[in-house]
């Protein structure tokens, strides 16, 4: 790989990282929010490295040194160039800048196992609001673990995206959650009955009541909803969480 290409690659990768983490929220499609300072720092460092390489090349003193190295492969200095494997780095850089893939969606959700829901011991009384906004995880816990069965008659509102069900009627309201990056994603799903399946990946707020199947408050209860109403909502900026929407929708 020639020096000007290396300079271009470093600069492009730096700009790509800055574009994804500083100027836009694209990085949230791939990694957790906590990585943002590191990504911005990396972008700046790479950009500086690229600029330094460019400056060293145009400067008279170092240009000679660089040229000397480029032609001195008989001496085989370790650091004079980059191996051709480095060309692969152009892929993420260009992808981040011009062709960023979307957040994981229905395709991944349909092929992954459901995330095991943690065990919760005590359940506080539910707020009186109706419909009651709940996260998919909380709804699953209430259905499968709450011995007080407080959820039984309540009208709840859940938010997530649509993923198709493999068999039977109904579809899944879905959230994909990860701890670090999209490679370790896990899925939370609630089966929804009572409405036609909307197109996959549509973000919806669904209002409804528990779909009675199994014994409420035990593992046999199905985390499912009889939908009364479903209306589209905007996709959250950070889609990889199972949080309540900040504004009532």
């Amino acid at each position, binding site marked *: *790989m020639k020096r000007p290409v290396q300079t271009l690659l*470093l600069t492009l990768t730096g700009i790509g990282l800055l574009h994804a983490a500083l100027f836009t929220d694209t990085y949230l499609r791939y990694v957790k929010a906590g990585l943002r300072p590191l990504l911005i720092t990396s972008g700046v460092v*790479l950009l500086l490295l690229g600029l330094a390489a460019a400056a060293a090349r145009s400067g008279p003193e*170092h240009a000679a040194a660089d040229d000397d190295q*480029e032609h001195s492969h008989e001496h*085989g*200095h370790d650091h004079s160039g980059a191996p051709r494997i480095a060309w*692969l780095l152009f*892929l993420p850089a260009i992808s981040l800048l011009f062709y960023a893939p979307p957040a994981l969606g229905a395709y991944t959700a349909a092929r992954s196992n459901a995330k095991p829901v943690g065990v919760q011991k005590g359940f506080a009384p539910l707020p009186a609001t109706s419909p009651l906004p709940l996260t998919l995880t909380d709804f699953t816990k209430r259905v499968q673990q709450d011995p007080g069965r407080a959820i039984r008659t309540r009208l709840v509102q859940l938010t997530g995206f649509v993923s198709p069900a493999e068999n039977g009627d109904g579809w899944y309201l879905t959230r994909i959650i990860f701890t670090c990056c999209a*490679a370790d994603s896990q899925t939370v799903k609630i089966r929804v009955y009572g409405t036609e399946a909307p197109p996959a990946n549509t973000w919806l707020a669904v209002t409804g009541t528990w779909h009675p199947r199994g014994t409420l408050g035990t593992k046999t209860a199905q985390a499912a909803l009889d939908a009364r109403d479903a209306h589209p909502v905007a996709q959250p900026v950070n889609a990889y969480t199972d949080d309540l929407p900040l504004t009532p929708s």
Partner: protein
Amino acid sequence: MEKTDELVGVAEGVTVVPVGTPSVRRIRPWPLAAALVIALGAVAVLALVGTQGLNRPAVQAWRTVCLAITVQALPFLLLGTALSGAINAFVPADLFTRVLPKRPALAVPVAGAAGAVLPGCECASVPVAHSLIRRGVTPAAAFAFLLSAPAINPVVLTATAVAFPGDPAMVAARLLASLATAAVMGWLWLWLGKEKWLRPVLRHRHSGHRHGRSRLHEFRLGFQHDFLHAGGFLVLGAMAAATFNVAVPRSVLDAFSGSPWLSVLFLAGLAVLLAVCSEADAFVAASLSGFSPVARLAFMVVGPMVDLKLIALQAGTFGRAFAWRFSTATTLVAVAASVLIGGALL
């Protein structure tokens, strides 16, 4: 003989010879062959899923996961290569030989432990170990360092602690099992190793500060080279991992996770195939939640020491005769260490 010489020439020379020189194009180093295989695999996947190309859900998911692994690991990689560049440029050349004990059997564990304070990606540790040997460090100690440095440095251990929250035993087990493997491999080399497996170094190489050059300039060049080099392998690893992540149904994993013995061997083999950078492999291990802790430990102990890109790098640097013997032995020792130490701690 001629062939092996060429291979060494490629590993060292390809970094300097401008791309496109006909004499180099003839000889393809292993990493490129691997890249080719992956590219072909990607094309095959594209052909299988249809002509819609890059916007098919499967391909989109693959791109997302691939980019996620790369973006996630880039800051760690940058940190590691910056440090190794700084050490290369600013640490005195004879420091390592002065600090190490004279007796090889003692130098091995010391060099293994020294891996902890010299953070670097596994790709960077191969040239460092090579230059250590050239500076008179006994090969056994250099190999112990080569194995331990990517596995037990603070960056990797921190990443492990982050990936396994509330499970400090996993971090301790990884540290101990990696150290044990590195030391055992060093002693094994003292006992059974033969110098003739190592390629005589044909070219005069320098890594480290040279007189008449600005240290800052050396640092920048080393940093840049190491980053681009390791970054390329990172993307390759991310592609392989993403292919695995998207293409293999989770039920296949579950089939192996049931049996404790098979699962350890399966994840050890997976670590070799996936070639995930050691700074990121703890997160991959954490996501393999269906497997026993010992199997996941084996994944994290084998991964930084043996994987496809490392075998390629070692074959280029030390010779093929060395690389396959060393990698096979390391895998066996690492699995044994994981089972013993993981069995005791986890």
